[in-house]
C-alpha cells in the first residue's frame, strides 16, 4: 500500500511534507534540472524586500565543522522584479510557492505582505523576522516577543493568505517567541533560521566573512533545531515546519516525530541539488517499509 504523505499547513494542502528553505533554492527555476518540483510539497523563494538589495560584500560564505556560515545580506531582486521576472515561472508549476519576505520597519513588512497577497501565483507567505528593526536601534524583530507580535500583527492585517512566521533560534526562550506570533495571528511557524556565528582566518587575523558574523546552517545545528521544534510543538497548537540540518529522509522524520507537520531542506540542496526530492521519496519508502500508512500519524508521536 502506498503511504499517505499529504499534510495540510495553514490551509495549504501539500502532497508531502518536504519543502525547500528560503535562500537555498533560488526562485525555484535554478534547480529544475535536479528536482522535479512536482515531487515536493512546496518551495519557498529567496527572501524578498520592497526594493532590490545589494547584500553584503564577499566573502559571504565559509564552511565550518559540519555546517556553513552565510552572510549573503539578503541580496534579492526586490518585489517589483520578482513579480515581473520570477512569478511567470511559478504559473507553470503545480506546487505551492511560498514567498519569504522581510523588512526593516513594520510598515515595510505590512506593505510587502499586501503586495504578495495580491499575487495569485503565491500560495502562502513566510515572514522572516530575523532582521534588525531600524526604528528600534537595530534590535532584531525575532528576538523580542513584543516586536515579533507587532510585525506579525501588521502582516496578518495585510494578507488573508496562509501566514507562516519563521523564528530565529538566537533567543533565550523560543516558546515565548512562538506564543507571541501565535497570538498575533500566525497560521504556522517555521523554525529554525540560522544561528549567529563567526569564523576567523588565523593567518590574516581577520574574520573570514566580510560581514564579520553570519548565520550557521547545516547538520551542525540539527540538535538545536530539533530541540526548539519539540519545545514549541508542546507549547503552541499551530502547525510547525521544522528546519535545520536536514540531510536525508531520516532527519526529516525525526523533525516530524518532534512535532513538525512539514520540514524545509536548506543547506542539503547545495551538497546534493536533488536532496528535496530524494528526501520526499525516502520518506515514502521508510513509511512503506515500516508499515506507517499516514505520515500524519507520526506528527509529534515522540514518546517522551
Amino acid at each position, binding site marked *: 500500500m502506498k503511504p499517505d504523505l499529504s499534510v495540510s499547513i495553514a490551509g495549504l494542502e501539500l502532497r508531502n511534507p518536504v519543502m525547500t528553505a528560503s535562500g537555498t533554492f533560488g526562485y525555484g527555476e535554478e534547480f529544475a534540472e535536479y528536482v522535479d518540483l512536482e515531487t515536493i510539497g512546496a518551495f519557498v523563494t529567496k527572501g524578498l524586500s520592497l526594493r532590490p538589495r545589494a547584500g553584503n560584500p564577499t566573502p559571504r560564505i565559509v564552511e565550518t565543522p559540519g555546517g556553513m556560515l552565510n552572510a549573503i545580506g539578503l*541580496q534579492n531582486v526586490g518585489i517589483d522584479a520578482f513579480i515581473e521576472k520570477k512569478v511567470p515561472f511559478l504559473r507553470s508549476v503545480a506546487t505551492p510557492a511560498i514567498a519569504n519576505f522581510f523588512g526593516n520597519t513594520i510598515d515595510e513588512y505590512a506593505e510587502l505582505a499586501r503586495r504578495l497577497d495580491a499575487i495569485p501565483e503565491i500560495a502562502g507567505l513566510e515572514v522572516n523576522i530575523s532582521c534588525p528593526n531600524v526604528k528600534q536601534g537595530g534590535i532584531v524583530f525575532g528576538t523580542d516577543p513584543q516586536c515579533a507580535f507587532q510585525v506579525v500583527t501588521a502582516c496578518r492585517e495585510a494578507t488573508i493568505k496562509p501566514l507562516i512566521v519563521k523564528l530565529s533560534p538566537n533567543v533565550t526562550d523560543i516558546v515565548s517567541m512562538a506564543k507571541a506570533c501565535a497570538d498575533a495571528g500566525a497560521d504556522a511557524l517555521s523554525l529554525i533560521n540560522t544561528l549567529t556565528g563567526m569564523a576567523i582566518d588565523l593567518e590574516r587575523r581577520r574574520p573570514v566573512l566580510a560581514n564579520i558574523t553570519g548565520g550557521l546552517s547545516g547538520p551542525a545545528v540539527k540538535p538545536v533545531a530539533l530541540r526548539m521544534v519539540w519545545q514549541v510543538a508542546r507549547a503552541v497548537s499551530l502547525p510547525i515546519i521544522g528546519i535545520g540540518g536536514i540531510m536525508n529522509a531520516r532527519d526529516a522524520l525525526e523533525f516530524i516525530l518532534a512535532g513538525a507537520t512539514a520540514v524545509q531542506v536548506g543547506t542539503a540542496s547545495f551538497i546534493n541539488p536533488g536532496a528535496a526530492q530524494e528526501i520526499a521519496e525516502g520518506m515514502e519508502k521508510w513509511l512503506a517499509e515500516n508499515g506507517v500508512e499516514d505520515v500524519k500519524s507520526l506528527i509529534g508521536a515522540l514518546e517522551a
Partner: protein
Amino acid sequence: MQFKSMIISNVEVSPGYWRMRMTAPSEFPAAQPGQFVMVRVNDAIDPLLRRPFGIFDVGVHTPAQTGAASQPYLEMLYRVVGKGTGMLSALHDTDLLDVLGPLGKGFELGSPKEEKIIVGGGVGLAPLYLLAKELVKQSPVRLFVGGRTRDDVLCITEFERLGVECYVATEDGSLGECGLVTEALVRRLAVCDGTPRIFACGPHGMLNAVAGIAAQRNIPCQVSLEGYMACGMGACLGCVTPGHHHSNETPDYRCVCADGPVFDAAELKWEA
C-alpha cells in the same frame, strides 16, 4: 549533470599539484573550456560542501583491445591547499566521486583571425589547457605562464605539444624569466599585429593587472574568477563579484558560478 565518477588516475605532477583523470558520462566531453565541476570529496559531512575545480581536459579513451567500450573522461589539475584537496590527493584509482557539472559559462573563443594570448598563474592554468586545445584549431596561440617558483609552473610540455608558444616567468627566476608574467605580456602586446584576444586565469592580483593592461590597450579580455561557493548553480548567492557599475545604490552583483566563472574583464569592477 550529477554523476558518479570513477577515478582512473591521480598523480602528483609537481610538488603539491595533482592531476586526476576520472570517468564521465558520454555527454560530458561537450563541456566548454572554462566551465567547472563541483566535486563532493566524500559521503561524510567533513568536508561538508562540494569543492569547485576547473575542467583541465576532457576526452574519450578508446581501449587498444577491440570490442572494449570507449570511456569518456574528464581531468582536473588541482593544488593541495586544505582539507578537501588533501583528501582528494589521497584517493586512488577505482575510488568513486560524486561530481556536478559542467557548470557555469565558459570562454568565448573569438574569431580565427585574431592572435590568442593565454595568461595563467599557478594552478590558474587548470581551465586553460582545454581552452588552448580548442583555440589552436583556428589561431596561433601564445601562453604566458607565471609562478612563484619552478614548481608552480605546470604542464608546459602539454601546451607545447599542442603547438602553443610558451613564455615562462617565475618570481624567483628558477624557471624562465625572473619577474611577473605580466611584464612579458606587455612586451608581446607592444609588437603584436592587429588586436589579439586575451584569456586569463590565476590569482586575483594577476587578473587585476591583466585586466588593466587590456583595458588600457582596448584589447578584449576574458578572465576566469574564483569565489567561495556553496551551490555552484546560482542559488545561494555566496560567490558573487561586483559588476562594473556596482554600487550600494545600484547593486550589480554577478554570480561567479552561474554568470561566470568566465567574464569579460570590462564587465567587472577592478581595483585601480
